[in-house]
């Protein structure tokens, strides 16, 4: 009987700055380099277009009109294209494929939901809407055929922009004459009365323009149908393989267990790929089945611009009442939200805007009312930040305006309105995007603020400003805070299995678009199981490995799947200890699992000899009692080895009562509600006095995402978010002309910041663990982007001395504002005179 494994050195104790889940040594909390990076950086990633080289290629004829009736589609010319396989229009669709695409997230306030058909059914509602699908031997030929399809159109008036949509002179959908898809009001207290009674009131109009996620890899679908097995394998560059699977099974009428959806490496999502099923996700497998051939479609950049999804695009009108100290007594926000031509993703974005607008503040009363409006433009679904950036922009502009009105320091006004740590958990009295109460679980908002002020040297800025002025330069400092609801439900799960080699295999249902899940989920499993992280591999987004799950969005992966992985690993750990206790004839409470083996605690230290021990790999062998051995390891678990199962003495069933074969388990996490992260951004900008160019000189981030699994990955998320935040504030803007043509549908004219435009990010953090989940973690995926518009507006305003009320802002726009300011059309800030050299704005927060 040789159960003892070789003696191995003990793992070093956890360093104090690396908090472990349970005080055990392990990788949890450490800045482990991302395990996926070498593969991805070296070009060894496998993206959608790396697959299916033999597949037929699909291309789409897309509407050139924003709003038009289809009179006739003539494919005669296209039929002559050599290599053409099929052309489909709406008339060819059958079964549920001919129905409108699903309304994914219904809501009582969404009284007039509309979704599109996979291929236009007689009418198109935005430029880029799919009208015909062409399948050919390759994409070049498919595009040749697309070019030869003749469509006779009857153009209809296009509704473009929020004012036109609200005025409703024309309707997008004839049966929604006012263009209002949803109208929603939420309130806490009597905001109108509170504002009317307040000592001071103010009204602001604040706009955030349309932008888009713009992942470097567009969408893509590759489907293969096994006619013998009657099963479908589908690959999609999606943020939710599990939900695509259910959607496609339902649409195509295939039993779910005959549909596999695999998400290969994904080159970015940022929200646009959580929308599903896209027309192409339905049509590509539908065509593959119909043709009995593999079919692939890879979205090109122009398609992504005109037929995926956009975001932002809100116009807010705000009334606020406040007292002499700058405390808000009532806030009334009305806004128009442009939801584009259809509402498949419901009204999640405006709901988030309307609730997360509150940030870290307790307002005396609050009323928010929004209209979500149809326009003849690409549909609007979440983009990183998902409504929060707009809400944050509005709230933080209000804070700056109040500070200016009262002649108070902007930080002071913020602190006076903040929820205090002893008020946690704090119920904002609203319903959040998950249908649950908006209750902040933990956080110390004033501490976050003070850390940010220290990081940016807020109180020392007057001297910086003076020094710059002396050189003829103009600089400004900005401040913005946010609270982010993260880890939205309903659930995620994970499966953890210890192989007979001792390797640990983790699978979870949600997908990965570059977040580093292969690293963080491995850290969690390695920590819980006491194995080296090198022994752990992680699979995401593959329904063959894990069937149930929701998806990767809303800063939820670490919270949801992280806790599910921990739960599964803890079950495996418990089982391993049970089996080991039997094998070692020891009590479970005496056992210790570390570095891949289970030892009897304290035994070796007393006499210096190694005590009884069993490798986790051996436990995995014993966990699956065998009749047939297939290798040397497996021989240990056969019936004559004397070691079978949990009862080596052989006086019980090989698989004990209540046990299952295999050293594996599935774990789940389903939260009662979201957990709330928070942070404060501060930045310093320089504005060129002559050219009005805007340069971000410093960008400081303080964030609190609860317990940190991997500080390097947290920082990376923050840096990426800041880059997109700078983009949103200074560069990115989707521009439609009056006829509904998207005029900058290329990377030449839709400007995302290059590395040269992204400032170095200085970070600091707080750790307020969430009591809502066992790991204490909160999401951080969107933290970097949320206050981007707000903090840069705050700083530009500070540099210029007049109000900035819409974002993004370009040098040309800033210069035009300066002209209007000089002409008296844009009023100065009240503090403008104090922004002159020699003055300072010293009123330190308490």
């Amino acid at each position: 009987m040789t159960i003892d494994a070789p003696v191995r050195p003990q793992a070093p104790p956890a360093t104090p700055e690396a908090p472990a889940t349970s005080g055990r040594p392990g990788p949890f909390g450490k800045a482990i380099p991302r395990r996926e990076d070498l593969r991805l950086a070296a070009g060894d990633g496998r993206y959608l277009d790396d697959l299916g080289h033999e597949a037929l290629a699909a291309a789409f004829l897309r509407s050139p009109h924003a709003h038009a009736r289809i009179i006739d589609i003539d494919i005669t010319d296209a039929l002559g294209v050599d290599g053409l396989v099929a052309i489909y229009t709406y008339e060819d669709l059958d079964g549920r494929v001919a129905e409108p695409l699903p309304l994914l997230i219904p809501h009582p306030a969404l009284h007039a939901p509309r979704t599109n058909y996979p291929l236009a059914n007689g009418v198109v509602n935005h430029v880029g809407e799919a009208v015909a699908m062409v399948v050919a031997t390759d994409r070049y030929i498919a595009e040749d055929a697309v070019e030869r399809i003749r469509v006779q159109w009857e153009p209809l008036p296009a509704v473009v922009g929020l004012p036109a949509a609200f005025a409703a002179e024309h309707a997008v959908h004839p049966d929604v004459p006012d263009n209002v898809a949803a109208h929603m009001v939420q309130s806490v207290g009597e905001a109108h009365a509170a504002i009317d009674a307040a000592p001071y009131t103010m009204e602001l109009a604040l706009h955030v323009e349309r932008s888009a996620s713009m992942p470097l890899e567009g969408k893509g679908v590759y489907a293969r149908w096994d006619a013998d097995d009657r099963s479908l394998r589908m690959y999609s560059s999606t943020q939710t393989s599990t939900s695509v699977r259910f959607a496609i099974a339902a649409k195509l009428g295939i039993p779910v267990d005959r549909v596999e959806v695999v998400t290969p490496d994904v080159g970015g999502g940022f929200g646009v790929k959580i929308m599903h099923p896209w027309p192409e996700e339905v049509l590509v497998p539908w065509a593959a089945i119909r043709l009995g051939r593999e079919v692939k479609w890879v979205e090109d950049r122009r398609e992504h611009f005109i037929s995926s999804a956009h975001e932002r695009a809100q116009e807010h009108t705000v009334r606020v009442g406040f007292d002499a100290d700058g405390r808000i007594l009532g806030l009334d926000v009305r806004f128009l939200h442009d939801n584009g031509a259809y509402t498949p993703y419901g009204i999640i974005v405006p709901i988030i805007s309307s609730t997360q607008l509150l940030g870290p503040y307790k307002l005396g009363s609050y009323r928010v009312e929004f209209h979500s409006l149809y326009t003849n433009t690409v549909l609007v679904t979440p983009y990183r930040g998902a409504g929060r950036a707009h809400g944050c922009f509005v709230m933080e502009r209000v804070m700056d305006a109040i500070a200016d009105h009262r002649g108070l320091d902007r930080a002071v006004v913020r602190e006076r309105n903040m929820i205090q740590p002893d008020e946690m958990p704090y119920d904002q009295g609203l319903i959040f995007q998950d249908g649950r109460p908006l209750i902040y679980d933990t956080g110390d908002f004033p501490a976050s603020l003070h850390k940010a002020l220290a990081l940016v040297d807020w109180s020392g800025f007057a001297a910086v400003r003076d020094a710059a002025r002396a050189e003829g330069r103009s600089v400004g400092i900005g401040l913005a805070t946010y609270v982010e609801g993260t880890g939205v439900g309903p659930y995620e799960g994970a499966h953890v299995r210890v192989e007979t080699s001792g390797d640990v295999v983790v699978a979870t249902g949600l997908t990965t678009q570059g977040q580093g899940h292969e690293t963080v989920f491995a850290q969690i499993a390695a920590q819980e199981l006491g194995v080296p992280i090198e022994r752990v591999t992680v699979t995401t987004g593959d329904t063959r490995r894990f069937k149930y799950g929701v998806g990767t969005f809303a800063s939820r992966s670490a919270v949801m799947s992280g806790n599910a992985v921990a739960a599964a690993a803890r079950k495996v750990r418990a089982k391993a200890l049970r089996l080991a206790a039997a094998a070692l004839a020891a009590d479970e409470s005496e056992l210790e699992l570390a570095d891949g083996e289970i030892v009897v605690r304290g035994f070796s230290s007393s006499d210096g000899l190694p005590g009884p021990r069993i490798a986790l790999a051996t436990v995995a062998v014993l966990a699956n009692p065998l009749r047939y051995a297939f290798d040397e390891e497996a021989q240990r678990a056969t019936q004559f080895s004397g070691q079978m199962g949990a009862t080596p003495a052989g006086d019980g069933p090989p698989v004990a009562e209540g046990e299952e074969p295999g050293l594996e388990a599935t774990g789940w996490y389903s939260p009662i509600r979201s957990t709330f992260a928070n942070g404060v951004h501060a930045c310093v900008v320089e504005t060129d006095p002559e050219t009005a160019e805007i340069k971000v000189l410093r960008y400081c981030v303080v964030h609190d995402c609860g317990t940190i699994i991997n500080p390097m990955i947290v920082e990376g998320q923050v840096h990426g978010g800041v880059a997109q935040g700078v983009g949103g504030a200074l560069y990115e803007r989707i521009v439609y002309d009056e006829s509904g043509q998207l005029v900058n549908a290329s990377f030449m004219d839709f400007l995302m910041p290059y590395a040269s435009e992204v400032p170095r990010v200085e970070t600091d953090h707080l750790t307020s663990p969430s009591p809502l989940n066992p790991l204490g973690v909160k999401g951080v995926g969107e933290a970097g982007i949320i206050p981007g518009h707000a903090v840069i507006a705050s700083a530009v305003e500070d540099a210029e001395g007049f109000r900035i009320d819409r974002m993004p802002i370009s040098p040309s726009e800033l210069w035009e504002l300066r002209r209007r300011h000089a002409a008296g059309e844009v009023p100065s800030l009240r503090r403008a005179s104090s922004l002159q050299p020699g003055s300072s704005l010293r009123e330190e927060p308490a």
Partner: protein
Amino acid sequence: MKPPAFVYHRPGSVAEAVETLAELGADGKVLAGGQSLVPVLNMRLAAPAALVDINRLGAELAFVETTADRVRVGALARHAQTERDEAAFAALPLLRQATRHVAHQTIRNRGTTVGSIVHADPAAELPAVLMLCDGTMELASAGGTRSVLVADFFLGPLESSLSYGELALAATFSLPPPRTGSAWVEVSRRAGDYALCGLGLTVSLDEDGRISRARAAYISVGPTPVLVDLTDAVAGQAHDAADWSAAGALAAGKVDPDEDIHATADYRRHLVGVLTSRAGRAASAHAAKAADR
């Protein structure tokens, strides 16, 4: 975003290239660095029946020659080669000053100086440099080679006097007189983007360090680069005390920019003034340094 089918020709000599282009006539298009042409093909904004790839003509065309009175850049010299050529830089610093603003390094590694000129984008740097240097284009066809003065070359946005069947062999930049300095300045939305407004400016000094001549060529403010003689505004003034704002005002009156999603016409005109001052000061300082040598 895939191009329609085209016939691909890859001649092994200039003679063969010119012959092929003559046969193709209006159906042929020259492919050099491809940094503008390939995206245009992929977006099906142009669909030439045939491409004539001159990338194998390096032995004949990948040159940057500097002589006493000119820099001559062959059709296959990449931006990077032009930018790094030390003799060209010593003789005509403006070439490097401007080329550094052409997109990004990876694009400059592939795109060509002559290709950029032939493409005739009013937002591109090299056409303006050619203008400022009173350059000429050498155009070869089956009938022989002709030289076209830059003043006759640019006809409009993306339109030059290059005819079907012609291959641009080289661009020749004349060297400025002694005691001349130059500068290239531009404002773009992001580093490496097409300029919202940009200009090259040359200043020549007399022996007393006074400005004898000043000229600038502006991009992104008209259908072609706009050449403005600024001499009247600054002539006779000391190189370090010239009234460049007057020169800027003069230039602002000579341009007629369009508005687009990135900038208003007024802002662009404003930039003409501001950037003229900046370039004027920089070029004067540069000229003074040149005079010291």
